[in-house]
C-alpha cells in the first residue's frame, strides 16, 4: 500500500538541491533517482540517490537542459514523478508539458502557470489587472520602434530586463540615458543566449530598495496559504548571498499587507504547489517584481522558522492531496539566516574560482545543505554556489552571531570561496542594525575587498614552517650566523 500514486521520483537537478530533495524523498518512503553528468559523478546527490542514471551532452549544462534525455532517464528509472529543483528546467513550461505527456507527475505548478509567470511582461500585466502594485515600465513589444523613447520617458534610474528571464540574468541598471542603448544591446545579447528570447522591457529602478519575497503554498482544492516572508537584500550583481526571515524591514502591519498581496496574486493565478512572490520594498511601499513557480534556493530559512518541510508539501500537492495546513497553523518561530557559499573571490571583483576540494569540514550545530564533497573538482561548468549554511536562533542578533561563528569554522581548502566576505558582512554594523538595501555591497566596497594585511604574518609563518626547503635552509645555518643575518639585511 502506497501513500503516493508513484514510488520513484526522478530529480532533474544537481548540487545541493538534488541532495536536499533526496533527504525528503527518503523521509516520505519514496525512491530517488537522479540523472547526472559525469562532471558530477563525485557529488553528494549521486552517491545518495537510490538510482543514478548518466546523461551526456555538448557540455555538462547542456546535458541537464536536454529534455528528451531527462525524460528518457525518468523512464529508465520507472519514475512516476519528477522534481525539477530550481534553475535548469524548473521554470520551463515546455519541459513540464513533456513530463506530463510522458505520464509522469510534474512536482510543480501547471505548465500554463509556468508560462504566465515565466513571461515577465504577461505576469506583470496579470498582477496589475488584478489590482496589485507594479513599478512604472516600458515594454518593447508594445511598439518596438518607440521602445527607446518610451524607456527614456520612464526616467532614470532604469532597469533593463529580459521578458523571458529571471534570476538576475541579463539585467542592467541605467543611470545615464546616454548609456541606455548600449545597455539594451548587451541585455538583448545575454537574453537571447540565456532564454532564447531577446524581448526586453525597462522598469523604473527603485534606489535603496529591499528585496522581500513571500513563500506560498497551494493545492488542487483551492487552498492557498503563505509561510511568511524572506528578505534577500544582500546581493552582488542581482545574486542573493544572504537571506533571512523575518525581515528586519517589516512592521507587523506591513508584513500582513505584503503576505496578503502574495496570497492574492497566487490565488488569482489559481496557483498550485510551492511558489514565491517577489516584491521590491521601498520604505513602506512595495511593487510586484516576479513570481517564481518553483522552490527557491533560500527555502530553508522558511523551513526553519515554520517547521514545514516545503519539499514534502510539494510532493503532497503534486500527488493530489489536500493541503493539511491552514493559515492559522503557520507560526513564525525565531529567526533564520542562510549564507550562500560561492566559489568566487569577492576581493577580485567576484571572479569565479575553481579547484579541487582538498579538505572540507562543516561546522556543528547548524544546517548545511551541501552540493560538494571532499575530493570533488569545482569547475567553471556550473553555477558557483557550493553549499548553504542555515542557522536558526531565538533572535536576529543571536542568529547573526551563530552564522558568523559557523562561517569562520567552516573549512574548505583547495578553492577560494566568499566565506570571509560572509564573515565580514555578519560583523558589519549596517547589517547587524538591519539597515541595508540591494545596493549595500556596492556602497560598501571595503566589505568585498577585505583587509589584506590581517593575520598575514601568521599565514606566512605557517607556510614557511610547512615548506621543507624553507626549514632546511634554516637548519643548515648555525644559530649565531642566523642572528647576524637579521641585521645584515
Amino acid at each position, binding site marked *: 500500500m502506497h501513500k503516493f500514486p508513484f514510488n520513484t521520483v526522478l530529480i532533474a537537478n544537481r548540487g545541493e538541491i538534488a541532495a536536499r530533495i533526496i533527504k525528503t524523498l527518503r523521509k516520505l518512503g519514496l525512491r530517488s533517482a537522479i540523472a547526472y553528468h559525469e562532471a558530477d559523478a563525485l557529488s553528494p546527490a549521486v552517491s545518495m540517490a537510490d538510482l543514478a542514471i548518466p546523461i551526456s551532452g*555538448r*557540455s555538462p549544462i547542456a546535458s541537464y537542459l536536454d529534455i528528451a534525455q531527462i525524460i528518457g532517464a525518468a523512464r529508465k528509472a520507472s519514475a512516476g514523478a519528477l522534481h525539477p529543483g530550481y534553475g535548469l528546467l524548473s521554470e520551463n513550461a515546455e519541459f513540464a508539458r513533456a513530463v506530463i505527456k510522458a505520464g509522469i507527475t510534474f512536482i510543480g505548478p501547471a505548465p500554463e502557470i509556468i508560462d504566465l509567470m515565466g513571461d515577465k511582461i504577461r505576469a506583470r500585466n496579470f498582477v496589475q489587472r488584478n489590482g496589485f502594485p507594479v513599478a512604472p515600465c516600458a515594454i518593447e513589444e508594445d511598439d518596438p520602434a518607440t521602445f527607446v523613447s518610451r524607456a527614456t520617458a520612464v526616467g532614470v534610474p532604469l532597469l533593463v530586463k529580459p521578458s523571458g528571464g529571471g534570476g*538576475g*540574468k*541579463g539585467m542592467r541598471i541605467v543611470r545615464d540615458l546616454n548609456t541606455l542603448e548600449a545597455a539594451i544591446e548587451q541585455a538583448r*545579447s*545575454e537574453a537571447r*543566449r540565456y532564454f532564447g528570447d531577446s524581448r526586453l522591457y525597462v522598469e523604473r529602478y527603485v534606489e535603496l530598495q529591499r528585496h522581500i519575497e513571500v513563500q506560498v503554498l497551494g493545492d488542487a482544492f483551492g487552498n492557498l496559504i503563505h509561510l511568511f516572508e524572506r528578505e534577500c537584500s544582500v546581493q552582488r*550583481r542581482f545574486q542573493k548571498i544572504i537571506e533571512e526571515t523575518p525581515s528586519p524591514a517589516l512592521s507587523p502591519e506591513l508584513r500582513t499587507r505584503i503576505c496578503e498581496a502574495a496570497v492574492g496574486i497566487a490565488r488569482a493565478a489559481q496557483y498550485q504547489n510551492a511558489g514565491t512572490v517577489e516584491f521590491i520594498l521601498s520604505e513602506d511601499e512595495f511593487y510586484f517584481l516576479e513570481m517564481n513557480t518553483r522552490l527557491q534556493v533560500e527555502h530553508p530559512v522558511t523551513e526553519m522558522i515554520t517547521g514545514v518541510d516545503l519539499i514534502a508539501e510539494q510532493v503532497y500537492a503534486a500527488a493530489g492531496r489536500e493541503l493539511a495546513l491552514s493559515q492559522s497553523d503557520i507560526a513564525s518561530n525565531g529567526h533564520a539566516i542562510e549564507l550562500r557559499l560561492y566559489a568566487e573571490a569577492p*576581493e*577580485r571583483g567576484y*571572479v*569565479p*574560482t*575553481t579547484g*579541487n576540494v*582538498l*579538505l572540507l*569540514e562543516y561546522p556543528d550545530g547548524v544546517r548545511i545543505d551541501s552540493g560538494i564533497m571532499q575530493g570533488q573538482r569545482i*569547475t*567553471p*561548468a556550473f553555477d558557483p554556489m557550493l553549499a548553504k549554511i542555515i542557522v536558526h536562533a531565538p533572535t536576529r542578533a543571536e542568529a547573526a552571531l551563530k552564522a558568523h561563528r559557523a*562561517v*569562520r*569554522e567552516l*573549512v*574548505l*581548502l*583547495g578553492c*577560494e*570561496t566568499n*566565506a*570571509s566576505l560572509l*564573515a565580514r558582512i555578519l560583523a558589519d554594523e549596517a547589517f547587524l542594525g538591519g539597515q541595508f538595501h540591494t545596493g549595500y555591497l556596492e556602497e560598501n566596497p571595503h566589505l568585498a575587498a577585505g583587509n*589584506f594585511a*590581517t*593575520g*598575514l*604574518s*601568521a*599565514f*606566512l*609563518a*605557517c*607556510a*614557511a*614552517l*610547512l*615548506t621543507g*626547503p*624553507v*626549514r632546511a*635552509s*634554516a637548519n643548515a*645555518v648555525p*644559530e649565531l650566523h*642566523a*642572528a647576524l*643575518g*637579521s641585521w645584515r639585511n
Partner: protein
Amino acid sequence: MHHSFEIDGVDHRLWLSNSQQGYRLHLRDQVITPVAFTYHSESSGILTIAGESEPVRFAIEGELIHLHIRGRARILRYIDPLRTLAPANDGTRPLIARAPMPGVVVATTVSPGQSVSAGMALMTIESMKLETIIRSPQDGIVDRVHVKEGESFEHDAVLVTLSKEGR
C-alpha cells in the same frame, strides 16, 4: 637564504632561522620569535606564533599551500628559488591574451592571420552570468585562437596568441 611566497599576486620574501624554542621568522620589516608548528594530523596542527597558539587546517597541492587560520582561508604559492633565476622576458615571447577568469567562449571575432590593433575585441567570453570582451593587449597578427566557441577554460588559460606585426 631568502624564500618567497606569493599571495594574491604579491610576493612576500622571508626566511627562517633556528631559535631555542623553534624558529625565528624574518619578514621584510620584522622578526617574529618564536614560531613553531605541531602536526596533529596530515591536515591539521597548531601554529605557535609570538606566544599565541592558533589551530590550523592545511592542504598542500604541489607548490600551493592552502591554509585556514582564525576563520580565514588563504592560498600561498611557494616560489621555487631556482625558477626565479630563469631569464627575464627578452621580448621574443609571443603576445598572449589570457583568461581573466574561468568561463566559456561565446563568440570569437578574429581568425588566424588577421591583423589587430591594441584594444580590439578578440573574443567574447562568459563567466557565470557576465559577458566580458577579451581585447588585444597590443598591435599584432592573430597567430592562433586556442579555445573554440562553446568551449570552457580555466583562469589564466591562453585564449589567443598574437605575433608582432611584420615579423
